[in-house]
Every structure is written in C-alpha cells, then in structure tokens.
C-alpha cells in the first residue's frame, strides 16, 4: 500500500517532482563532471607534467675515500660506480609501482666522431628507447611481467626529425642531437664512425662502430649535444656490460609522497640513491591541489543550489498537501509513516536526479576536458555510486525542514474545514 501511495502521489504531481529532480540534476551533473574531470585529469595533468621529463633520478650510491696521511688531508676521491642493468626491473616492483610511468637507463661515454668532413669529441648516451623489460618478480600476481619503457616513454616531448630507434637490438642506428648534427654536418641517413679509446694512457685499445643517423633530436637541452644509441651498443663499445650510470624515472605522484617513492626505489635496489626533482614535483602537486580545491568549491556551491531547489519544492509540496497529511494523521498515521512517505519521495528524487545528473555530467565533463585540457575524459564507474549517494544525501538533507513541517501538521485541520 505504501508503494501505491508513493507511486500515485508522485505521478499526480509530476511537474512538481520534475522541478525537484531538475534541481538535483543540476547539482549531480556538476558534481559528476568535476569528479570525473578531477579523477581523470589529475592523472592526465600528471602525464602532461611527465612530458617535461623525469622527476626521479636513480644513481649509484657513491663512496668517498679520504686520501692523505695522518694530519695531511689531500681531499677525497670518488670511485666510479654503476647500477646493474639487470636490477632495473625492480623499480617496477615497489608499492607505488603503478605510478611508475617509465624509466630509462643511461650509460655515458665520451667518443670521437668522425665522418668525411669532421672529427669531434661527443658524449655518447646508451639507453632504452622503447624496450620490453621483463619484471622477474612482480609485486603482485596481477601485475604484468612485461613493462614497456625507455627514453621515448619518459620524454615524449622531444622534437625528433626522422624517427626513434624502435628495435632494442639495433646496433647500427643512432639519434643525434641537433648541435652535434650541425657541427658534423650530419643528416638523416648519413653514416659515421665513433671511436672509443679504452686505454687513454697509451691511446690504445680503440674500438670503433659504424652508425647511421635515423633521427635528429632537438630538445633545447643538453641532449642536443649528445648521441643516443641502444644501451647495448654503448655497453659493448666501452666494455661495460650490464652497467648503467643512472636511470631516469618518470613517476606520477599526485597522491603519493614523492620522498616515500624515492625511498622505496632505494629499498628495491639497495646500492642506489633516488633523487627527486623537487621543484617539478612540488609545482605539479601545487597546481593539482589548486585545481581540486576549485572543483570542490564549485561542486559544493552546485549542491547547495540543488538542496535549495529540492527544499523549496518539498516545502511547497507539504503546504499543498497539508489536508492530505492531516487526514492521514486523523485516520491513524503516525509521524514515522508521514516522514517515511516524504523521505522516500526525496530518496527517489535523489536517485532519479543522480542517475540523470550522471548522464548530463558526463557530457559536461567531455566538454570541460576538450575545451580546458584538450583531452577526452574517460567514464569513471566509481563516480556513479558517489554521485547517487551525494544526490540522495542532498535530497534528504534538503527535506529535513519540509518533513518537520509535515510532521507538525495538526490532524484537527480536517475538521476545521480550512
């Protein structure tokens, strides 16, 4: 019977209910749009930041050895150390592993470049471009055992003429910084020789490699002065198999403390130090935080407007139905039943408004995503229960005063002929 009363009372007052639902739709759609944008864009903004480079640098822990005699200090020397390439997969096994977007090892050496016209000393950097790294012991059984990573993943913003090196076993291709290319007159497709002297003292044990230019890099940074090759080329050339100087890590850290992140990498590869590029991280955190604060405020204002709309409609409804309420009470309805009737109506308004609001909000989020962030917003299923919960909550809260009014209607009203 309760269901019949509720259904018929709602269908009798369709336009009134529609206004209340519309109020909820406004709040729910804005909440949906901003929640979706906030959840999706904080990640996307993170990715945008990642375009400007790695935010963590993993280097071998350095040992300094004091040199001198007792009482005579000659200073310190630092022993050159390396990270084992075979340990790099461990970066993807930390607790915050899903926030590791990519990493790229780097092994540097100074080589002599020679072509038909010129000869010059240049820094050669061996790295991964886009390589499938095997994760030997994943953190969880649900994690993938293959991770595609490299300098192309963490530095997609590099301006490359020609192409990236795609095959990790390609020993012939190289990508040349624009300054090197200009100095040596190199163009795409040109071949040149690099020489590396292993024994400097005797200028002996010289290794040579023939390389072809497949891409010219323009970053307006130090990369413009370097030549990039596959890591194994650099390792073979310099006789340092399995060694890298450093690994640049691109980490998405809008929800995690970046220092913890760095600490976990150090735990995973104990002989390394992970240094954070704090300026970038804090700027990123700051901007994301401000965006989220603004969205939160706008959502609150929208929900307040919704609540006001629902409250007005419910109050009008109570005033219009005073006699009906009085009659129900006069024939034995307890306050609890009157409250249940109105609160059920409010709950239904909240659910319908929340569902429709989600739909409208999703469209709105696409608009915001495209016009503000130039990206589409992925539908987030988690938002649906949140938005419906918020809509029902707002609708119920907005109904408290009208329901109190309904409960206070005197049953004697039906006999006064008012």
């Amino acid at each position, binding site marked *: *019977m309760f269901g019949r009363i509720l259904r018929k009372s709602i269908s*009798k007052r369709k336009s009134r209910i529609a206004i209340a639902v519309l109020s909820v739709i406004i709040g729910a759609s804005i909440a949906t749009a901003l929640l979706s944008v906030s959840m999706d864009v904080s990640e996307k903004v993170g990715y945008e930041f990642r375009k400007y480079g790695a935010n963590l640098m993993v280097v071998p822990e350095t040992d300094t050895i004091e040199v001198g005699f007792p009482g005579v200090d000659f200073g310190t020397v630092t022993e050159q150390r390396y990270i084992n390439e075979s340990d790099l997969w461990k970066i993807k096994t930390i607790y915050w592993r899903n926030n590791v977007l990519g990493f790229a090892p780097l092994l540097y050496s100074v080589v002599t470049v020679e072509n038909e016209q010129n000869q010059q000393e240049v820094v050669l950097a061996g790295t991964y471009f886009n390589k499938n790294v095997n994760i030997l012991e994943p953190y969880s059984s649900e994690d993938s055992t293959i991770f595609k990573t490299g300098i192309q993943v963490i530095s997609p913003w590099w301006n490359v003429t020609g192409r990236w090196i795609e095959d990790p076993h390609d020993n012939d291709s190289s990508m040349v910084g624009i300054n090197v290319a200009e100095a040596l007159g190199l163009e795409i497709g040109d071949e040149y020789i690099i020489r590396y002297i292993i024994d400097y003292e005797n200028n002996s044990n010289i290794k040579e490699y023939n390389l072809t230019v497949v891409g010219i890099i323009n970053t307006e940074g130090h990369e413009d002065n370097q030549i990039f090759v596959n890591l194994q080329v650099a390792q073979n050339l310099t006789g340092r198999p399995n060694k890298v100087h450093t690994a640049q890590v691109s980490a998405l850290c809008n929800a995690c403390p970046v220092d913890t992140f760095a600490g976990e990498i150090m735990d995973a590869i104990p002989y390394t130090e992970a240094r954070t590029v704090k300026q970038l991280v804090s700027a990123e955190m700051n901007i994301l935080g401000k965006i989220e604060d603004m969205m939160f405020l706008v959502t609150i204002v929208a929900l307040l407007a919704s609540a006001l709309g629902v409250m007005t409609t419910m109050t009008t409804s109570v005033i219009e139905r005073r*006699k009906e309420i009085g009659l129900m009470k*006069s024939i*034995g*309805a*307890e306050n609890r039943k009157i409250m249940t009737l109105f609160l059920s109506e409010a709950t239904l308004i909240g659910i319908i408004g929340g569902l429709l609001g989600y739909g409208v909000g999703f469209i709105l989020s696409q608009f915001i995503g495209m016009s503000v962030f130039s990206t589409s917003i992925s539908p987030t299923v988690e938002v649906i229960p949140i938005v419906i919960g918020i809509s029902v909550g707002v609708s119920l809260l907005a109904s408290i005063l009208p329901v109190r009014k309904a409960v206070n209607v005197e*049953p004697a009203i*039906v*006999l006064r002929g008012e």
Partner: protein
Amino acid sequence: MTYEIVKIQNVVKQYDKKTRALDNLNLSIKKGEWTSIMGPSGSGKTTLLNIIGCLDSPTNGKVIINGRETTGLKHNELTRFRRENIGLIFQQYHLIPYLTAVENVMMAQYFHSMVDEKDAIEALKRVGLGHRLEHVPMHLSGGEQQRVCIARALINDPKILLADEPTGNLDQKNGEIILELIRELHHEGHTIIVVTHNPEIGDMGQKKVLLVDGKISFKNNNYGG
C-alpha cells in the same frame, strides 16, 4: 452491555486569553447511543468533536474514552488510540484525490495494521459502492464520496463513529442515503456522535446536546428517535 463510552468532566479548551472554546463542559455518552451535537457557529461543536476524537487535547479537565483517560496521552499514543477507537466522517469527505475508492479505504487499513483488499471491497459493497471500486474521487458524486468516507471510517471496526455535518455538502436524496446508512450502523450497535446544524438530523439522535459559547445550554434524551 451499556456503559459510558465517553465521559467528559469539567473540560476547558482555551486557545488564547480571549478565546475559550469549551467552558467547564461535562458530558457522558453511553455505548450504542446516537448523540447529536448542535449549536451556532463558534459555539465549540468542532472543538468538542476534536477532543472526543482525540484530534486535540483539552486545556483542563478529564476525558475518558472507552474506559481510558486520553488527557495526558502523548502525541503518538493519541494517534494509536484514535485509530483503534474512532471512525471519522467528514463534511468535506477528505478522500485522497489520487487514490481509487478501494485504495482510500485500504489506506486506513494500512495506517491501522494490515491491508486486506477483500475487506476493503466488502466495506464499499456495504455502502452500495461495489460498482465504483476503482474510481478516483473526482469521478464519484458527492454522495458516493461520502459513502467511501463512511466505508473508510468503518474499516477498522471503531468503537465510536464521529460525523461532522455528514450531509452538509449533499443534496436531499444523497443526504437521505447517508442518514439511512448511519441509522443502520446505529442499529448494529455503533456509538454515533453527529455534529449538525440541521434540526431534523439533530432530532434523530437519542441524545441532543445544544452548545452555546462553549457550554451545554440544553440536553435531552429522546429514546423515541
């Protein structure tokens, strides 16, 4: 067994300093009795009906309905007591406009205890509306609406039926149908209290009470009616 189903002792109802609707009123009504309450507008008839119907409480005095003192009962206790003991028939019928005739009767069952559609249909058949069960009030005549109101008042088998100007909005023919129904209910043993301006209806009661300025100015027992 005949006993005093309504006992009103020294009841005062004061709305504000100037308005005293009932002034030290004493009245007793026996079980199965038909009592007519009459009086000019503002004499306190509706206030008295509200107090007997547990829709309102007196400022002072004692009200005992069906052996229980209702003065001092809390709001929800009064509601429970009312739905167990009182059936209300209104001049304006007060049917829920969006519910059908049978649903209006079932609603009273729902607020009382359990809904039984068969019983609700029986109650409507009894008042001659077996053919109008699924009609909403706007599709029923005034007399039919009043009969739905009576079926609703009867559905929970109340001890006392209170009728406020039950024929006040009806033409003579429909008014007679309603009065005939009330008469039948009385013969079945129901205690009936009718507020009316109409002297003919007033004369139908076994007891007639005339209220003036919140006081009983005249009371007679007419067991011939």
